[in-house]
């Protein structure tokens, strides 16, 4: 079963499903069918191995019925009309009787097929051999950078997402491919070992994917410095965050905390702070699936909602959350394009897309100039949110000491940036005039992984490091 299988069934289903929806909605307030084909190709080469890995494709349909209170769903890999009709009827029978509850906010009628425009080379048209050679060439370049590199991994990922969503307000489809290329550099010397990575990503054309020599050289310099890095003295520090770390803060601090399904569960303090200041007035933050070419972008979410930019913080004030169909309908808040599924095997949750701080006015030189003793936080490893208490944890891979506005050459490794989110965001005194988004995978708690980006400009703030 491959991506081409979806192409063979989508037109038939596009024609068949509206009548099935109509039949189901004779008995229940709402029904939909979403069909997904997620296919992943991975190429991974290192000094000792080369592998092309085709993950089992996740191709199937989700039939959804709303009984007025609860969503009932059946997910299946069998896409023939008779099977879907039988399962839809079973599902309606299970959902009955209809209960009294909030109506789902479906929005205006929308139809059409979406794909990334102006693509020179569609990734699935590029020969696998060419992708393999790209990885080998980048590996070869990397290996030659320093003898202390004991190995390096070049990791290419191509995630093609095709989907069709049909309900009484939508008959929309989308075909896009997300690409990423990572160089993971592993160095060892005098009994110490560490790693750093360089990454690029895009959604759209293969020609957009470029892991540059400069990125790989920078990662090499970083990993060599990490071999002699120290742990930082715990305490409150003046920090400058790179766009990578700014993005980690955006994602963990307010991204998760403004997911409206978390409001319903009373798991988010953000619910109480809508319309109130939560950050320094120079801070603005968005979730935005419309960013052209970004790894977390889409045209429609997994519930057929067209992509739009959502302002989350404007001038320091929390203005809006992000939400899926069910959560926004129950909460009575505006629906956004953030209903996403890991695959057809999972339910839709409120999920981020591209989450970032908006750029400001300052250059990095201006931000560094009057730092007496601080840390430049170079890259993040991971993060975890606590929207209820507004706690934040960001694990920082590497930090560089700053004294009197200059780097001292001293490097710190494995730092924890923790704190109370409004305090952390309130401490932002400068916002950089640069901008970068980095790709990643976001979990809901510890599961439900979806592709996202986060980022923004450099930020100057005060943070608790350990």
């Amino acid at each position: 079963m491959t991506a081409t299988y979806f192409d063979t069934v989508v037109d038939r289903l596009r024609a068949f499903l509206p009548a099935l929806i109509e039949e189901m909605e004779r008995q229940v307030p709402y029904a939909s069918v979403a069909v997904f084909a997620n296919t992943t190709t991975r190429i991974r080469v290192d000094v000792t191995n080369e592998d092309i890995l085709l993950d089992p494709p996740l191709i199937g349909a989700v039939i959804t019925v709303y009984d007025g209170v609860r969503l009932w769903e059946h997910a299946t890999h069998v896409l023939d009309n008779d099977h879907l009709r039988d399962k839809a009827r079973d599902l309606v029978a299970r959902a009955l009787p209809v209960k009294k509850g909030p109506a789902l906010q479906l929005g205006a009628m929308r139809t059409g097929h979406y794909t990334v425009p102006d693509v020179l080379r569609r990734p699935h048209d590029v020969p696998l051999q060419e992708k393999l050679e790209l990885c080998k060439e980048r590996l070869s370049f990397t290996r030659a950078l320093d003898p202390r590199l004991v190995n390096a991994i070049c990791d290419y990922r191509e995630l093609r997402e095709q989907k069709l969503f049909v309900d009484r307000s939508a008959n929309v489809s989308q075909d896009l491919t997300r690409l990423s290329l990572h160089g993971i550099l592993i160095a060892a010397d005098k009994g110490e070992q560490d790693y750093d990575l360089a990454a690029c990503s895009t959604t759209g054309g293969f020609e957009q994917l470029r892991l540059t020599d400069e990125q790989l050289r920078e990662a090499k310099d970083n990993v060599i410095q990490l071999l002699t890095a120290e742990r930082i003295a715990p305490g409150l520090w003046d920090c400058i965050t790179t766009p990578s770390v700014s993005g980690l803060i955006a994602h963990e601090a307010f991204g998760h905390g403004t997911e409206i399904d978390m409001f319903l569960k009373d798991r988010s303090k953000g619910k109480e702070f809508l319309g109130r200041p939560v950050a320094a007035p120079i801070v603005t933050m968005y979730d935005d699936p419309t960013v052209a070419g970004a790894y977390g972008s889409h045209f429609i979410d997994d519930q057929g909602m067209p992509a739009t930019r959502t302002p989350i913080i404007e001038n320091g004030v929390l203005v809006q959350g992000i939400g899926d169909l069910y959560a926004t309908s129950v909460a009575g808040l505006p629906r956004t394009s953030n209903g996403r599924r890991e695959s057809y095997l999972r339910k839709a949750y409120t999920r981020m897309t591209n989450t970032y701080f908006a750029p400001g006015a300052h250059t990095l030189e201006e931000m560094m100039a009057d730092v007496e003793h601080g840390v430049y936080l170079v890259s993040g490893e991971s993060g975890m949110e606590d929207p209820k208490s507004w706690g934040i944890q960001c694990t920082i891979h590497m930090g560089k000491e700053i004294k009197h506005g200059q780097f001292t050459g001293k490097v710190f490794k494995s730092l924890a940036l923790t704190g109370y989110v409004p305090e952390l965001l309130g401490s932002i005194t400068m916002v950089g005039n640069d901008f970068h988004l980095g790709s990643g995978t976001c979990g809901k708690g510890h599961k439900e992984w979806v592709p996202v980006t986060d980022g923004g400009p450099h930020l100057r703030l005060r943070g608790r490091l350990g």
Partner: protein
Amino acid sequence: MIHQLLDALRAHPEIAQWTVRHQQTREWQHYLIQNQPEATRDVHQELYIVTLCHSHPGPDGRAMMGKATVTLTAADREQIAAQLDAGLRIAAMTSNLPWTQPSATAWPDVPLHDEETLLDPLAAIERMAEQLQVAVAQEPQIRLSAAEFFFEERFTRLYSSAGIEVEERGTQFVLELVLLAAAATGDAAAAVDETEHFVIEKRRRLADLDVADLVADIARNARDSLVAQLPQTWNGPVVLDHNTLYELFEPAINRADAQAKFMGISPAKIGAPFLGEREVVGEPLHLALASDLPYGVRSHRFDEEGVPGQTVEVVTAGTFRRFHGGQRFADYLGVPATGEGGNLVIGPGTQAADALLQGPLFYIVAFSAMMPNGFTGDFAAEIKLGYYIDEHGVRTPVKGGSLTGNLFDALTAAQFAREVRFMGRSEVPTVIRFNRHVTIAGENQ
């Protein structure tokens, strides 16, 4: 379909070796928001996952091998030959040292499925949801935020060109539970009005999870979080609860991985101290990976190549004994294949948990996320809930700040509780006390 597929594989002249995993999966999912059902789902999937290998000479003329995986469903019945050819073309693109396949053998009869729940999975889940709600209602200051229940049944039949034909039936249950604690009216000690505490538990059987006990634990943690304060910065002993250990030990599991060794990124040497030249002043580490642990979440009768489930003693008395890994990297290293890593088993120590909890120390029961650096063992994790225990045994809840250290350094001065606990995917001491090499970053004294 399976016979058609096997016939095509056996008849293909260019496939050097192959496996087929025929997987039939059913899953039932149930979601509560507060006390209301949000969604109820059932899922059905049937896949034929074919791994095939192609032998060819490498650039230097040596025999090499490449592999590819193609996945079929019943809808692919008419395209079997074309799909296999497409897979073979991909396998021919990569060149690795050849490896062998496991042979047919006597696979262990590892208990993996929950017969009782399978009688009516959705009803069993809904019963558990009711029990959970009753247990929550009995807890003062506590209410349910959300709960998610996932119960999966999977039949796997494995076939290979080495003559393997074997099957297993497994179930898996996942519970995600979030409780909220509200400050009692007039509670001056409460730092906040309401806090949450959550847990994700994985088991093979519903009966292996005591819902009432679990709710009591999480409720207590949630209530304690209400009054918890930022800890003082600390360089003394820190005790970690069994809940926090699985993720912490991932760098140790990585270090023992045959693939990591072959890639030159693991310093582990068979017969040498696992912690290298570090001086060990604590109790020696015993670490195993057990894929034959009854009802272990990571247990199996056989792995995806057909290697039988087994217990792999990775580290005994502080000495590294065996790498774990599949057939390919075991062949490369010239060691026996152990199959995919199983459940984490850490051996007990000599003292009771109560003795290890003698203060002054910090006792951490939950991190926001423990995600150590898999290469180095460095970690830095926010404390979600812990306790400062003074020399008289008085406990003061703490949260915030972070615990930092390096797993391999910390293990040089570790003491393991003599009591062990089964946690679904691990069987570990109830606590581990780290006497040195860990730091809590908190309020400066």
